[in-house]
């Protein structure tokens, strides 16, 4: 059994007097998908924000690939192989699709600003490598025909896929997807699920953590689910176990799908 790639113990965070997340623990293994579901306001995105170090936790610890990252910054943790998408697609305007993917690779681009200013051979070589890597990532996910489009010219479904591709460009260890199906119509949702399954095949060592608030999506994708409500984990287990859990059903009573 391979080692756990992402692990948190007892994560808690409160804003002012409001407790957003309480005592959250998760374990994630390479090559698997786990899901976090819960009604709106259950603190799911806050968990992601803490994991990616946008927020500091009040209590708890986080381990990535065996290393304690609780004291690391957002930038450091991203460079260590933690990738995420956001609830509203945050593709960069002013950059086309290919550049958006390249930007995920840029921090590691190796050539100096001096090289860049004078367009030195080393810079040219590194740029070619970056371009190849970005292009091959797009090709792998069947998005290469959109390479030189502006993100705003793509349909929302495709924007989402590009954003996910961008998250994969640098071969991360963990990919966190924040409500990837939000705003998609049923047809696009089906395509998205196929897309994610495709990613699992093409990136066999990748661990994925998905947030969703729609039950049927998570059921289909994940091996193991955490159910959050008002910051607390009210249940966890396989889809089958969760489906029949009375507490889970109670939390979702009255929730629109």
């Amino acid at each position, binding site marked *: 059994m391979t080692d756990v790639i992402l692990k948190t113990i007892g994560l808690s965070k409160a804003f002012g007097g409001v407790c957003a997340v309480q005592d959250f623990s998760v374990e994630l293994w390479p090559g698997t998908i786990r899901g976090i579901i819960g009604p709106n306001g259950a603190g799911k995105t806050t968990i992601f*924000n803490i994991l990616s170090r946008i927020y500091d936790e009040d209590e708890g610890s986080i381990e990535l690939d065996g290393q304690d990252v609780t004291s690391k910054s957002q930038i450091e943790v991203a460079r260590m192989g933690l990738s995420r998408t*956001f609830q509203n697609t945050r593709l960069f305007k002013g950059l086309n699709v290919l550049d958006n993917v390249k930007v995920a690779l840029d921090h590691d681009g190796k050539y100096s600003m001096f090289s860049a200013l004078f367009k030195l051979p080393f810079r040219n070589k590194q740029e070619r490598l970056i371009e190849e890597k970005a292009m091959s990532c797009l090709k792998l996910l069947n998005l290469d025909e959109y390479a030189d489009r502006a993100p705003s010219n793509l349909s929302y479904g495709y924007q989402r896929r590009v954003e996910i591709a961008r998250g994969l460009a640098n071969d991360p260890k963990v990919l966190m997807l924040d409500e990837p199906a939000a705003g998609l119509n049923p047809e696009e949702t089906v395509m998205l699920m196929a897309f994610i399954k495709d990613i699992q095949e093409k990136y066999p060592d990748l661990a994925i953590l998905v947030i969703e608030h729609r039950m049927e999506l998570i059921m289909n994708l994940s091996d193991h689910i955490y159910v959050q409500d008002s910051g607390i984990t009210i249940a966890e287990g396989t889809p089958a176990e969760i489906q029949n859990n009375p507490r889970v059903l109670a939390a979702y009573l009255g929730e629109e799908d």
Partner: protein
Amino acid sequence: MVFQLTINGISNGAIYALVAVGFALVFNILRFSNFAYGSMSSACAFIGFFFQRAFDPPPPFIVTLLFASFSGMVIALLIDFLGYRRIRINNSPKIYYFLMSLNFSIFIEQILTIFYGTNIYSYPSIFKIQSLQVGSLYIKTMNLLILGVSVLLLVALILLINKTKIGLAIRAVAIDAETSRLMGINSNMIIITIFTIAGILSGVAGVFLGVQYGVYPGVGPSVMLKGFLASIIGGLGSLRGAIFAALALGIFEIFLTFFIGATETTVVLFGIMLAFLFIRPQGIAGKLVENKV
């Protein structure tokens, strides 16, 4: 001597407080820097001056103040309507507000310079008694008036913010504009209110500046920077902090100028501003608000 300087400093600080608060209101609640604030004050200094001079015998000073504050309000609302409104509608990035406000600042200053540029006008003396003597201290009656009016306005403003319904709405918008709008607070009303208040404050500040330092196009902008400094030191989100910081700044500046000279003072003040931003950007009283992702 120390007391004398302090007394002068307090009225200096009172003007800064007016500027700081007017600036801080827009800064804290609408979340952008209104660079135009300084030249608005300059414009009102001119307006007050010419209003005063237009009648013979000159009207009571209070009337001039009222007229100037009314003009300030009009100017503020005009700037918002002509400049900022479109940017709001277009939902352009914040940078656009800066440039637009700078733009207006220059526009107003240029117009003033073209038509009145080379002279420094001074207000005729307002009071028959120029100064009162208390023991060995000389207190200029004008300084008393400035202090009095400023205190009145600022107290009224604080009461407005803390005790009225519209004040509550303003505070809500300061904390979270998005949610406030969703809860039904009319953001346009709030914006108009904020600019009205800022305009009035700049009008009064402008007249006082004109009286203290003379009426010339650049009189407003130089003070605006110190108003900003006071907002920073006092703390983001805290009007009371801005007021106290402005007073302290006013006193401190008078002392500093007396001991080391005006030019050096500018350098020192700037150094202090840098130091504050480096060490404690949220100021003395303020709290940093985290952005929701």
